């Protein structure tokens, strides 16, 4: 079996077996603790520029199925697993994970002590790394150390749509303009299921572009990378606030928060998993959420017109913002799940109710 190495910027080396395409790949090494949903994660644009470590040790058990993909390609730069299942079993499986990875040209490594990698990241924070099948550890390390920082790249630009399009199922009675920073398909599906027609705009679209669609509401989508680099997007979002109901998810939440005066900061090792408890401040209600973000909102500077609506019970970071008198709600977590718990799909209901409530009222 071909050998492969995972080399981290701190010099640690984890040997393993190549279980995808040959070659080498670089990225910020992050871990996700979900026990299911590997294919959804692999197609989540928020992983752009990252190497994904899955903490669950047996990956590929139920095979792959194109219908669960959340975007049109594999998004992380590489995949690290303890074991890539050689045999998949599921009614809907179209094949095993290894051939899938190879076919998609994804560089991946198996046989790694992923718990050791995770512990390292937890202690020292996320760091750059590489999976390589064609270098020595020393060579790989030299290359990793010369890489530009993950935070210096505008990853949104690399994943957003390059053209405006209507979501296929769009025949709904409410019009939603979605600003695509790296959207997952289930956001569109969730809106369409609630009788919404969704038009997707590239990340560099202006407020006027979106308003030109005469939307009933705007969705600011999730996406990868440091939200501080998205100055234009933040400014355009600022111009939308108060003029149209807004739902911000993940990156969209961070963009809206910045538009409302808040800052953002990088978490030491992010929140990635399907088990994060989030409390709604007003009701005290706790739900379990799917999360995938490396940055969080710093509420210092947040406009007094806005308030923190949700907090993370693990580390008390901001999980949601709302405004006192404007139709805006944002969440740091993923109400669309896929993967993850379905506890928060009601956010979409709430958004749609908001659209109904303010119909014709704002603008």
């Amino acid at each position, binding site marked *: 079996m071909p050998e492969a190495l995972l080399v981290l910027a701190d010099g640690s080396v984890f040997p393993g077996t190549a279980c995808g395409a040959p070659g080498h790949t670089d990225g910020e090494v992050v871990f996700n603790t979900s026990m299911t949903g590997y294919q959804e994660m692999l197609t989540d644009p928020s992983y752009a520029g990252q190497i994904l470590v899955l903490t669950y*040790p047996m990956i590929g058990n139920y095979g792959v199925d194109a219908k669960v993909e959340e975007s049109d390609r594999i998004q992380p730069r590489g995949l690290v697993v303890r074991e890539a299942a050689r045999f998949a079993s599921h*009614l*809907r499986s179209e094949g095993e994970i290894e051939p899938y990875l190879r076919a998609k040209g994804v560089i991946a490594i198996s046989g790694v002590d992923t718990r050791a990698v995770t512990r390292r990241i937890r202690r020292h924070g996320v760091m750059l790394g590489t999976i390589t099948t064609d270098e020595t550890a020393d060579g790989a390390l030299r290359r990793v150390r010369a890489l530009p920082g993950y935070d210096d790249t505008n990853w949104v630009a690399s994943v957003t749509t390059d053209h405006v399009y209507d979501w296929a199922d769009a025949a709904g009675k409410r019009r939603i303009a979605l600003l695509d920073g790296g959207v997952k398909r289930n956001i569109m599906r969730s809106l369409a299921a609630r009788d919404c027609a969704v038009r997707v705009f590239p990340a560099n679209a202006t407020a006027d572009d979106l308003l030109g669609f005469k939307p009933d509401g705007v969705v600011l989508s999730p996406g990868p990378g440091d939200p501080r680099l998205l100055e234009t997007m933040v400014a355009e979002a600022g111009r939308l606030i108060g003029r149209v109901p807004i739902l911000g998810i993940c990156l969209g939440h961070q963009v809206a928060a910045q538009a409302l005066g808040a800052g953002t900061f990088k978490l030491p090792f992010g929140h990635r998993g399907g*088990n994060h408890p989030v409390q709604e401040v007003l009701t005290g209600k*706790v739900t379990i959420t799917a999360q995938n973000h490396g940055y969080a909102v710093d509420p210092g500077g947040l406009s007094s017109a806005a308030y923190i609506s949700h907090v993370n019970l693990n580390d008390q970071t901001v999980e949601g913002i709302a405004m006192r008198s404007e139709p805006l709600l944002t969440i740091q977590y993923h109400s669309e*799940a896929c993967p*993850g*718990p*379905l506890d928060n799909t009601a956010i979409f209901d709430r958004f749609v109710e908001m659209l109904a409530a303010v119909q014709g009222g704002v603008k």
Partner: protein
Amino acid sequence: MKPASVLIIGSGPIVIGQAAEFDYAGTQACKAMREEGVRSILVNSNPATIMTDLGVADAVYIEPLTVPVLERIIARERPEGLLPTLGGQTGLNLAVELAAAGILEKYNVRLLGTPLETIRRAEDRELFRDMLAKLGEPVLESHICHTLAECEAAAESIGLPVVIRPAYTLGGTGGGMAFTTEQLRTVAESGLAASPITQVLVEKNLLGWKEVEYEVMRDGAGNCITICNMENLDPMGVHTGDSIVVAPSQTLSDKDYQMLRSASLRIISELGIEGGCNVQFSLAPRKDVRDWEGDADRPLPYYVIEVNPRVSRSSALASKATGYPIARVATKIACGKTLDQIPNAVTGKTTAAFEPALDYCVVKIPRWPFDKFALGDRTLGTQMKATGEVMAIERSFEAALNKAVRSLEIGRRSLLWERPEWRAGGEFPLHATDERLWALMAVLRRGAAVMDVARQTGVDPWFLERLQSIIAMEKRLLAEPLHPELLRAAKRLAFSDEMVAQLADLLPDQVRERRHQWGITPVYKMVDTCAAEFDAETAYFYSTYESENEAEAVPGPAAVVIGSGPIRIGQGIEFDYASVHAAWALQAAGLRAVMVNSNPETVSTDFDTSDRLYFEPLDEEAVRDIIENEQGNEAEPPASIVQFGGQTAISLAEPLRRASLPIIGSSAEAIDTAEDRHLFERFLQDRGIPQPPGAAVTTLEAAMKIAQQIGYPVLVRPSYVLGGRAMEIVQNANELVTFVAQAAEVAQGKPILIDKYLEGREVEVDAICDGETVLIPGIMEHIERAGVHSGDSMAVYPPPHLDPAEREVLRDYTERIVLGMGAIGLTNIQYVVLPHEPGGEPQVYVLEVNPRASRTVPFLSKVTGVPMVQLAVNAMLGKKLKDQGYEGGLWPERNLVAIKAPVFSMSKLVDVDTHLGPEMKSTGEVMGIDRNFEGALAKALLASDMALKPNAAILLSLSDKDKADAPALIRQLAGAGYRLYATEGTSRMIQALGLPVTSVTKVLTGDHPNVVDVIRDGTVQCVINTPEGRLTGTLRDGFYIRRAAAEKRIPCFTSIDTARAAVEALSRQAEYDIATLAEYVNG
């Protein structure tokens, strides 16, 4: 709102379907209440539990679990709340009965955790179905039936096969599957009989569908989380307690997983449970395994099978599988906390409001009693048969499975094992039995196609492919010379050194040597609830072959407590009790306590119990690896304690000695002296202590000769086994031939013991020794005469019939034996005391010496107030008894009478004979305690379901040898107003006494009603049947009588002594007292 005081109902004796998991739950609950400042009042009839220790709850009652008893306790304690969800089905049912009787209302007791209405909705099939329909959850076609005719009509409408599930029973008691109309009748009758409300559910049979469970929690604010999901390797059709279970699910996609998770949360919300709940689903399988109607592109169809609105066996497993303490959190919720207000005890930083993420695979395998009940029906179905279970944790399914199989301790059976008959006959039983896993391996090994096997068994191909990968490794080990890469690959699949040795043609020690040479040693990873996302503080570890070790050696004194593994007949919860106390005693003495065990149900495997928990098989390899890991770079390895974990632990003494690893407590030599017949005989002879004449033999010839010499009856048993396995009283040479052969198989090359059988009073003594002083906390006298296994006997403390001279001899013998053997710590000695002339010499014989903690340790510790395990551990650590404040000799007897009574699970085990004999059959025990014998006996009988109901009809069928003893008993019965039924011979005898009797025939093929009919149709409510010698016609008839009684769940006395005691208790109209354990012991 926080209640000031709360009553907790325990689950009573260990029976199949209700085992140690409720001790774990109850103990956690008491701790949690203490943290919350709530006064806890605990009632349980089972003395072998940690939860009934003084100091765990604020008030401990060891009393029968009946409504009248509970009412008296409620009246006495006036608790504000009742927490019914921690005592299994027993606790839940009692809560319902207390409410129905108006007692909760009368005393203003609030039901906590689960509302009464919820219990009804979860347990009553009709209400349950209505609730599911309301939620829009799919409901399986089923019919609620109260009569046989209704069952037949239901089966007609649904179409066979069907499943029959009785309402309000535990472990599926009385239920089953019916494929034919004949089976339908049998199962429906037994199901209706088992249900306290005579209600069964007849439902569509989803044989071959996947079975998946979710453990969920909800707090009073309506916050819901799932703790864990689990998937059964065995598809629908096998009780989940009898299934091989894996956590988390392996063959569910994220969509499937979340769909069922959401359904679970909807159900717990609708039920309004405040605490834990278990939801069982049936999920559609692959269509190429079992076809089903419906669109394969839609979300997979599923059905909700069952909801348990309480903590359960599964929740204990989920707690251990994830590290999330379900019972503890459920209790805090019941006390008014919300999930976000409860700290996560594992991380110490986050809260209980999160869902555990696993970065390993957990496999549970049930432990069945068929090694003891060779004639029992091994088929698995909807009625649970396992007595216990093991769990293993690893980074792959294959590895976890291999470790779990090692943990079962069925001899040294690994996955390589095959039944010789399979090979000979070319038949591999793939239907559900306790041996199916091995049969699957065997057919796959022989090249069967995975899909064929999947279609035949319904086992998902994923599991079978994983078995294939184990087989592929077997083949490599057979074919290739052992090299580092291969050995490492094998260890990563958790092949034991012994398996590798067997395949690579080496000795296990050679494999170990090579591992060390090649640097292939296990590392230990933490179970931290969060897949390493947070820094965790628990020291709960499992072994694996990876790169990073998280269980670094800790400097300072430590000792390793070897646990007792799965609960099985002969090795029950008593040994977990002792192991837990050993860990606590080590901590109190300032040592780090390191616990090793494989049983997920127990208190010992709570990560709170010890300083470090290794969840590992209890075999030589695992234990040596752990000791090496604990030693780190220190010069000396930590010592091991082997005397608390039953035969499992004691068996490790010899391998540890061979490996030059230190043991504290009785040395391996002392253990050998007790267990080696020749050494033991010489030892007693040298000290002039008598034992029944006999000898150890290795051939049949020698056995015949010895038996002839000492005279029949003789006792035949293999040496070195626990719980009297394969032990028999043999009356003649014919029987001897049969039983020597049987014992030889069990003995595996070790000698067989043939002893003169002395029919006297059996007496048991536990002693603690520090090398100088011997303390005897108490003497227990058995109600049944010698010949009934001590674990199946009723034992009385203090001994009612021993005179001072006999007590003195017992003390003297005990001291001399213990000191002479050099036993340090605990020793259990069994004696038989024959009648002696007034003023003459007492006639005391030693039957058996066990230099280890016995199953009477918890009972005796409780009733004497002597902290036996703690004293023993301190003695092992070198602290003298007198420095601990204890003198030697017989500890003053307390002003109380306590009776330990065995409890059987016979109704669950088809084809197993229930008569008492030298081989142990009970699964659990209860205790009756009072100020006098009558009260204690009444309680013991009540608690063990053996109490006679007044004015009942009673069936007698007595052996000839018992007929001499019987007239007094029969007169008493008649005098107490019992209507007597008897089989032919016994009936003649009763007529001769001039008493009225109805004769029923023993001939089952002739006229009706016969002896079995009168049991089945409820004519009689109690049976006294004492078996004749073995292999005679009487025994066979007796067998049907005893089975019918077991299945009808009516008391069946197979020893004239027990029956006499029961009749006496009844005829004296014993009044019993209700008091806390502390009041009894200190009063």
